[in-house]
């Protein structure tokens, strides 16, 4: 979707405008993107707010010319998720948000020099490999702007001297990767959680700025490797729409089928890992047994198991394998049968029910405020499925239900995923016999140059809304390519969900939130 109606605001107007939008029902802040528009444009932020009832989106931007001490007003009191998004913008661009209670770096080390995403920063020269242990501050800074424009600072404490802080991560079996939670405990009860991210921050967004468009495609698969198809689908779609390429019906349908297969794959892995985390090792293996069937299908058609690299600008890398339809058709009843087995071995288990019902609940308001899309949001009753709200590919041609539940606790988050597997199977079943004939790839120019402009494309990835924000200056590489992470809001909500629960529940909550760390850190 081309964004030609971005509203430009002066920093001074921002607060008032945002408060007005929030009051009008724009209660979901889907994007907060730091930007560097160079010397003239200054440092700024692009916001995207969405009305959760009408699904109307409003894009806004603001900028400040001051590069020494860029200060913008915070919106972290309006949307909870802005807290972490603004820290990200501070980390990458050095933009200070006045009134933000916790202005610390979030991805990079606290002793990092410079702001790497600024166009004039030289991160590698300023930051040699530091092998000393990372400093972790127990207090943080809040900036505020007085009426005359002077910036004052205030200290806030994160953990006091009396807190018994346990580090969960960065190397810990239950964090599913390298995520670091500093957890203040009182006995077994969690008092506070402070996530420290960036252990797998690979600088994908910065890399993209120096890569050509086809090259940028390779990195999307490696962000959320359990949503490789969907992430790449989003980027391809974004570039195709920007360049005005119409892909054939066949490509649309195949992409839809593969997206759904990927979703099943991810949800099976979710089930497996949750079982593993909760100590039911056998159920873990059952999940992997079935996952291999999907990987077989992927392997035959796409050549890869995990990193698939199948979508490309203008279509697909190769046509589907002759066995594809047969294999998928065999898989559908097989999986339906095995879902019953999952329920028998794990869902019905009284220990699991006791450990998940009522544990780590999020209300609908919290989920929206934190921007927890995907299954986590739908478990609270928030209908946030991009496939329904902003249909793309072949989703408007198929009939499927958006699975919703009420309680928003761990059990609901778990059930949502298992039910979504069945929904995905329905979608595939409707499409698999009706793959239209057509080109599997449109012809594109050898060098792809996206026309100048700003573009955004969202898809429903395995764990929520995955968005691609592309700003192009008409070159062969993007000026700014931002991905809306599906996992970052989930991690941000961990503190709210876990407080007052036991440390064992942390594992359940973390497992059912279903985040993938490289996608959070990008």
């Amino acid at each position, binding site marked *: 979707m081309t964004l030609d109606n971005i509203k430009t605001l002066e920093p001074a107007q921002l607060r008032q405008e945002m408060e007005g939008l929030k009051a009008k029902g724009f209660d979901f802040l889907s994007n907060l993107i730091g930007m560097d528009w160079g010397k003239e444009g200054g440092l700024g932020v692009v916001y995207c707010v969405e009305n959760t009832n009408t699904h109307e989106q409003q894009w806004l931007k603001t900028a400040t010319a001051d590069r020494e001490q860029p200060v913008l007003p915070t919106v972290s009191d309006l949307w909870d998720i802005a807290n972490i998004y603004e820290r990200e913008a501070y980390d990458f661009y050095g933009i200070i948000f006045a009134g933000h209670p916790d202005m610390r770096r979030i991805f990079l080390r606290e002793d990092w020099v410079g702001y790497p995403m600024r166009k004039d920063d030289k991160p590698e020269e300023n930051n040699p490999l530091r092998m000393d242990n990372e400093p972790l501050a127990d207090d943080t800074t809040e900036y505020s702007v007085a009426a005359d424009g002077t910036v004052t600072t205030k200290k806030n404490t994160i953990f006091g001297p009396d807190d*018994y802080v346990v580090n969960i991560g960065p190397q810990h079996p239950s964090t599913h990767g390298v995520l670091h939670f500093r957890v203040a405990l009182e006995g077994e009860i969690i008092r506070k959680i402070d996530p420290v991210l960036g252990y797998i921050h690979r600088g994908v967004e910065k890399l993209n700025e120096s890569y050509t468009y086809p090259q940028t495609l390779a990195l999307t698969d490696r962000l959320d490797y359990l949503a490789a198809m969907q992430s790449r689908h989003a980027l391809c779609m974004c570039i195709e729409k920007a360049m005005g390429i119409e892909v054939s019906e066949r490509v649309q349908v195949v992409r839809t089928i593969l997206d759904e297969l990927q979703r099943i794959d991810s949800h099976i892995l979710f089930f497996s890992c949750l079982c593993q*985390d*909760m*100590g039911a090792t056998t159920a873990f293996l059952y999940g992997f047994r079935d996952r291999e069937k999907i990987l077989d299908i992927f392997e035959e058609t796409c050549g890869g198991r995990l990193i698939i690299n199948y979508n490309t600008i203008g279509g697909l890398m190769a046509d589907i394998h002759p066995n594809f339809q047969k294999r998928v058709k065999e898989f559908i009843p097989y999986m339906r049968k095995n879902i019953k087995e999952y329920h028998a071995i794990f869902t019905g288990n009284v*220990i699991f029910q*006791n450990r998940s019902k009522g544990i780590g609940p999020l209300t609908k308001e919290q989920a929206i405020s934190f921007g927890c899309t995907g299954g986590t949001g739908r478990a609270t009753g928030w209908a946030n499925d991009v496939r329904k709200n902003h249909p793309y590919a072949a989703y408007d041609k198929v009939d499927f239900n958006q699975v919703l539940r009420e309680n928003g606790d761990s059990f609901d988050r778990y059930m949502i995923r298992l039910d979504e597997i069945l929904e995905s199977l329905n979608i595939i079943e409707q499409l698999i016999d009706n793959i239209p004939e057509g080109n599997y790839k449109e012809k594109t120019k050898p060098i792809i140059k996206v026309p100048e402009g700003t573009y955004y494309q969202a898809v429903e990835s395995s764990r929520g809304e995955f968005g691609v924000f592309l700003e192009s200056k008409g070159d062969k590489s993007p000026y700014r390519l931002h991905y809306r992470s599906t996992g970052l809001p989930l991690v941000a909500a961990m503190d709210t969900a876990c407080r007052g629960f036991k440390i*064992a529940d942390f594992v359940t909550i973390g497992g059912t939130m279903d985040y993938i760390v490289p996608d959070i850190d990008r």
Partner: protein
Amino acid sequence: MFDFTKVTNWIDALLLSFLPGWAATLVECVLVALVIITLYAVFAIILIYMERKICAFFQCRLGPNRVGKWGSIQVLADVLKMLTKEIIDMKNVDRLLHKMAPFLVIVASMLTFACLPWNKGAGVIDFNIGIFFFLAAGSIGVVGILLAGWSSNNKYALIGAMRSGAQIISYEVSIGLVMLTMIVLTGTMSFSEICQQQADLGWNIFRGHIPAALAFIVYLIAGNAECNRGPFDMPEAESELTAGYHVEYSGMHFGFYYLAEYLNLFICAGIASTIFLGGWAPLHIWGLDGFNHVMDYIPGAVWMVGKTFFVVFLLMWIRWTFPRLRIDQLLALEWKYLMPLSLVLLVVMALCVSLGLTF
């Protein structure tokens, strides 16, 4: 039924024929210790192999199959590796306690292992308060675990140890009460007498019918919890506490915990089979004399080990099926359900015995 005292008396006589009394006793002690330690190691290896194979088959896998035939000497390789692995000396630990803890655990486990009656006349530690001794010796293990957690100077280890302390001490109550229930039935605390009685009168689980069967279930649950095994493996809950109380142990010190875990499982199952399933007493069915006669030909040790492995298999089945409990649920299970139930069982059993309602 073959009486093992014939063998022991023969050895005793042989030694006494050329040694003074004290020296003969000394030699016998050393011999018995050697046998016990060997058995301990052999059973540990068998159990670990068994667990790995059983869990593999539950999980649609093959399990170890490349070292030796069907992977049968896989565990030997593990033992060799463990023996030659470095034991790290750490700076901020309480040295003495840190090094003592694994030995306490293994000593407690060996002491209780020695309580098992293997055959008629083949019990190492066998005296009139055998069950009492078993409970007392078994409790030393928890001290080792607590010390490990405390001395490691590691938050995970500390939490794991505290959990373990709370868990084991709680479940000890149930185990004690259930054993008391069975003592009411048998009227003795000596393992050899309990077995002899069952050989003469029938297995306790049949003699004590309903209360005994319930007590058996309570014992299995509580015993599983005592061994810190899933679904009660909170102290080392991998996904929460990485490795729990033994997180800082390496090499053979860790090996001791690993061995003790499996042997405790075996001991737990062994006591279950001694107290409830007749120990070395063969299966006798009333009225089928021919069958009973055949059963008598199977040596007692085979019965004992067979029953024990059957119970071990049950416990492994549970281990690989259920998810883990949470610590508060675990304690609630004990204090709210198991302990009242075992108190009731004790009373019911006492009534049954006094009214002559047992077989």
